[in-house]
C-alpha cells in the first residue's frame, strides 16, 4: 500500500515537472525560435552569414570569450581571498571589511560601473590625482580590456561572499588540527584541507563568473571603449530590432550553449568525487593566526586596499545621489552642491510600484526556491538519464536573452492554449510572476544543487533507520543544513527582481506598474523634463538600502542556523 502511494506521489511530481518544462520552458521558446528563424514561410540561417560578414561583431564575440575565462580566474582568486580574510584568518577589523566586501551584493550594472568611472574615468577623483603625479597620463586612461577586467573582477565577488563563506563554515576544524599535528604548513592546510571543501561551491560560483563575463553589459559599454566591445550589449540591441532577432537569438544560443557545456564539464569533475568530512560531530572553525609577520602585514595591506576599492564607488554613488545632473555630468563634486531635493522628489512619488515589485519578486523568488529544492532533491536522489534531462531542461532560460524569453511568453500565452487549460495569461499577475521565476531558474538550480553537496547522506540514512518518513527526514535533516544557502539565494533573487526591466516591460499590467518600469519612465531620456541622472542614483541608493535590509533579515541575522 505504502509503496503504491509512494509511486503515485513520485509519478505526480515527475509529471508536474515535465509539464512545467514543456509548457513554460520549451513551448514559449519554440514560439520565439520559429518566429525568428522562419521567415516568409521557410527556415533561414541568413543570420550566420550576416554575422560572419561583420568583423566588428565577431571581434566582440571573441572579446567576450576572452574576458570570461580570465575573469573566472581573477574573480575566483579575489573572491576566495576575501572569504579567507573575513572568516579564516585573524585579520584586524574583519567585520568592517566584510561589510565593505559585501557591497557588490547590493548594486550592479550601469550604476556600479558609473561609480568606478567617477573615480578612474575622465576627470575622475583618482585620475586627477594620478595626473598630478604622472603628468603624461591621458585623462581617459581607464579604458579597454584592463579597465573592464578591473571593474568586473571586483564587481563579481558577491556570490563568493555568500556561498564560499557558507562552504567554509562546513570545514571541520578537527581536520585542520589533525593536519597541523601531522606537521602540515599553513599553506598545505589551506590547499589540501580547506580548499577541497570549498570546491563544489567554488565551481558553482565560477560558472556564474564565467557567465557574467560572457554576458557583461555595463562594464564594456562604459569603460571598454572602442578597443574592447563585448557581445552582450550588441545582443540586447539586436534583440529589440524586429528583423535582427535571428542574429540576437543565434548569438545568445552560442553563449548559452557554451555556458551549458561548461556546466557539463564541471558536473563531470564533480562526479569524480569530492571531499566530505568523515566527522559526525563537526567542530566550528577557529580563526587562524598568520604566524609569519611579513605575510601578516602583507595580508593586512591587501585586505584594506581591497576594502578601499570596494567601498569607494559606493561612496561616490551615495554622494552624487545628493547632487544634480549638472554636477554628475561635469564630475565636479563639491559639498555646497549637496541637496535633499532628489530624495524628496523620489520619495514623494507613488509608492505602489515598490509594493508591486516587492510582491512579484517575493512570489517569484519563493516559487523558484521551492521548485528548485524539489528538483535538486530529485536529481540528487534519483541519478539517471531522466533526472539529467530534467536538470539540463531547467537551464533553457540561459539559451535566450530575457527580451526574447519575454516575447515568447507573451506570444504563446496571450491566447488560450490547451496545455495551459485554455487560460489566456496576457497582462495577468501570473505571467509576470512566471516570467520572473523563469529567469531565476538557472542560478537557483545551480546554487541549490551546490548546497546539496554539503549534506552528509549518512545523516538522512540514520534518520530513516530511526523510523523517520522520507518527507520528515527531508524537512528535519536536509532543509536545516541547506537553509542558509536557500535563504541567501532567495534574497539574491528577490533583490535582482526588484527593479527588473526587460521582462516587465513586455507584460506588466497598467493597473500595477512594477518598479523597473516606473524608474525607467521617471528617468528616461527623451522627454521634456530634462536629464534625470541624479534620480537614477537616488533610486539605486534606495534599492541598495532595501536589498541590504532583505539580505540582513533573510540571511545575515540567522546565518548560523545551519550549523547549530
Amino acid at each position, binding site marked *: 500500500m505504502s509503496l503504491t502511494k509512494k509511486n503515485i506521489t513520485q509519478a505526480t511530481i515527475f509529471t508536474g515537472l515535465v509539464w512545467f518544462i514543456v509548457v513554460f520552458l520549451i513551448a514559449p521558446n519554440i514560439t520565439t525560435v520559429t518566429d525568428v528563424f522562419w521567415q516568409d514561410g521557410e527556415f533561414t540561417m541568413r543570420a550566420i552569414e*550576416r*554575422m560572419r560578414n*561583420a*568583423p*566588428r*561583431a565577431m571581434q566582440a564575440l571573441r572579446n567576450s570569450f576572452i574576458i570570461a575565462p580570465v575573469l573566472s580566474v581573477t574573480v575566483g582568486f579575489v573572491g576566495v581571498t576575501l572569504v579567507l580574510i573575513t572568516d579564516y584568518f585573524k585579520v584586524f577589523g574583519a567585520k568592517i571589511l566584510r561589510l565593505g566586501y559585501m557591497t557588490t551584493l547590493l548594486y550592479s550594472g*550601469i550604476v556600479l560601473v558609473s561609480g568606478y568611472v567617477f573615480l578612474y574615468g*575622465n*576627470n575622475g577623483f583618482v585620475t586627477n590625482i594620478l595626473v598630478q603625479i604622472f603628468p603624461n597620463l591621458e*585623462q581617459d586612461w581607464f579604458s579597454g580590456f584592463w579597465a573592464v577586467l578591473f571593474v568586473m573582477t571586483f564587481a563579481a565577488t558577491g556570490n563568493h561572499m555568500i556561498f564560499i563563506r557558507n562552504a567554509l563554515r562546513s570545514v571541520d576544524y578537527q581536520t585542520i588540527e589533525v593536519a597541523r599535528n601531522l606537521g602540515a604548513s599553513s599553506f598545505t592546510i589551506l590547499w589540501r584541507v580547506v580548499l577541497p571543501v570549498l570546491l563544489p561551491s567554488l565551481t558553482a560560483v565560477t560558472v556564474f563568473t564565467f557567465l557574467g563575463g560572457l554576458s557583461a553589459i555595463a562594464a564594456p*559599454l*562604459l569603460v571598454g571603449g572602442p578597443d574592447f*566591445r563585448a557581445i552582450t550589449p*550588441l545582443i540586447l*540591441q*539586436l534583440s*529589440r*530590432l*524586429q528583423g*535582427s532577432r535571428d*542574429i540576437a537569438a543565434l548569438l545568445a544560443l552560442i553563449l548559452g550553449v557554451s555556458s551549458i557545456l561548461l556546466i557539463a564539464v564541471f558536473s563531470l569533475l564533480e562526479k569524480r568525487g569530492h571531499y566530505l568530512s568523515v566527522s559526525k560531530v563537526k567542530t566550528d572553525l577557529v580563526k587562524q593566526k598568520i604566524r609569519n609577520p611579513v605575510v601578516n602585514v602583507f595580508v593586512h595591506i591587501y585586505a584594506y586596499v581591497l576594502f578601499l576599492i570596494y567601498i569607494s564607488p559606493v561612496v561616490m554613488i551615495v554622494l552624487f545621489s545628493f547632487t544634480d*545632473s*549638472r554636477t554628475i*555630468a*561635469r*564630475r565636479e563634486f563639491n559639498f555646497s552642491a549637496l541637496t535633499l531635493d532628489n530624495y524628496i522628489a523620489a520619495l514623494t512619488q507613488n509608492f505602489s510600484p515598490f509594493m508591486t515589485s516587492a510582491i512579484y519578486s517575493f*512570489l517569484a523568488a*519563493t*516559487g523558484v526556491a521551492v521548485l528548485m529544492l524539489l528538483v535538486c532533491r530529485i536529481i540528487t536522489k534519483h541519478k539517471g538519464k531522466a533526472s539529467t534531462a530534467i536538470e539540463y531542461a531547467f537551464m533553457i532560460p540561459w539559451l535566450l536573452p530575457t*527580451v526574447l524569453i519575454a*516575447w515568447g511568453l*507573451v*506570444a504563446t500565452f*496571450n*491566447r488560450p492554449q490547451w496545455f495551459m487549460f485554455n487560460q*489566456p495569461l*496576457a*497582462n*495577468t*499577475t501570473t505571467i509576470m510572476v512566471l516570467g520572473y521565476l523563469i529567469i531565476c531558474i538557472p542560478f537557483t538550480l545551480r546554487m541549490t544543487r551546490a548546497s546539496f553537496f554539503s549534506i552528509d547522506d549518512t545523516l538522512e540514512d540514520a534518520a530513516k533507520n530511526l523510523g523517520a518518513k522520507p518527507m520528515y527526514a527531508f*524537512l528535519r535533516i536536509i*532543509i*536545516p543544513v541547506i537553509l542558509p544557502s536557500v535563504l541567501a539565494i532567495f534574497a539574491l533573487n528577490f533583490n535582482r527582481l526588484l527593479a527588473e526591466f526587460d521582462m516587465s516591460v*513586455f507584460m506588466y*499590467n*497598467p*493597473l*500595477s506598474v512594477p518598479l523597473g518600469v516606473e524608474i*525607467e*519612465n*521617471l528617468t*528616461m*531620456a*527623451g*522627454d*521634456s523634463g*530634462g*536629464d534625470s*541622472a541624479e534620480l537614477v542614483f537616488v533610486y539605486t541608493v534606495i534599492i541598495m538600502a532595501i536589498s541590504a535590509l532583505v539580505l540582513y533579515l533573510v540571511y545575515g541575522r540567522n546565518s548560523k*542556523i545551519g550549523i547549530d
Partner: protein
Amino acid sequence: MPKIFVKLLGFISVLSCGMFLFGCNQDGSQEQAGDGGGGNMVVLYSNALTDGRGDWIAERAMADLGIEVLQVQVGGVDLANRLVAERDNPQADVVFGLNPMLWWQLQHNDIIVQHVPPWANEIPVGNHPNGLFHAVILVGNLLWYDQNQINSAEAPGDWPELWQNPTFHGRYAVPDTLEGSTVQMVLSGIFNRYIDPNGHLGISDEGWENIAAKFRYGVSSNQDMAAEIAGPSGAVMSQIWSHGIPVREEQFEINAGFVSPGVGVPFSIEGVALVNGANNPDAARRFIDWFGQAEIMHEFSAEFGFVPAHPDALEGLPPFNSVIAGLTHQQIDWDFIAPRMGDWLEHILLNYMQ
C-alpha cells in the same frame, strides 16, 4: 529545529494564500476591464506619457469624456515589440506617440486599423494616407551645440560636416544605442541623401562611408546628450529633439544654438491610432476624436512645451515653439526608408558602432 519546520510551513501557506488572493484580484480586475466593451475605459499604449503627460491626459479624458484611461508607458521600440507580441489578443485600444518607422512596423503587422477623426483634414502634414494614424505632435530632430563652447560662426551648417570636416572630429556626441527615436530620425535624414537601389541594402557606397565616419569620429555616449556636452569628454554638439532644448539649457547652463540645414530638418510625427481588435473600440474612437482637436492640443502643448501638428493649436504658444514649427521639413522617402531601417540599424550595429 521544529521552529524552522513551523516557520517554513507558515511561510508556504501564507505564500499560497497570497498568490491566490493577489492573482484573483488582479485577473479579476483585468476581466472587468474587458467587459467594459464599448463603455468608458481605454487602454492607452504610448512612449510619450512620462513627466506627468499620461496623468494629464487621464484627468482631462475623465473630466471631458468620462473615460477612464489606463496607461502603459514603454519606450518606443519596446512598445512596438509588445504590440506585435500581443497581436493575437490585443490588450491596447489606442496607441499614441512613436515615429514614422515604428508606425510602419505597426502597419506592417496589422496592429492598427483605420479610424478618421473629425479633425483629420485640418492637419496639413503627417497623417497616414489611408487614415491608419493621424499626426498630433511634431518633433524636430536637430543638430544643436553649446554656444559657450563653440560660436555659431564656427558651427557646422549641416550634419555631414561633422565627420567630413576634421575640425569637428571628437567634438560631437553620438548615443551608444540606436533605440531612440531621435537617433533613428537623424539617421533617416542622412540615409535619405544616399538612396541607391543598387547599393548595399539600398544605400550607396558613399552613403555607407558617411555613416561609418559619423560613428568613427563621434564621441560615443551612454548619457543624456546635454550631459555629454556639459561634461569633460570634449563633445560640444549632438543630436537633440526640439522640445528637449529649453529645459536642458537651464539644467546644464548651455547656451543652445541649433543648425537649420538647407535640406531641412527631419521631423518625427507623433500620432494617434486605433488598435486592430481593441477591446473598447467605441471609447477608443471617442478618445481619439477628442484628443486631437485644436483646443486640447493647444492646452497639452502649452503645458508640456510641444509643437502641435494642428496649426490652430499653435497660436499663443511660446516663441520657441513657433520657431520650431517654422523650420523647413526635410522631405524623406518613408516608403523606401521605413521598411529598410531595421536592416540598416543592424548593419550599423554589426559594423560601425564604437
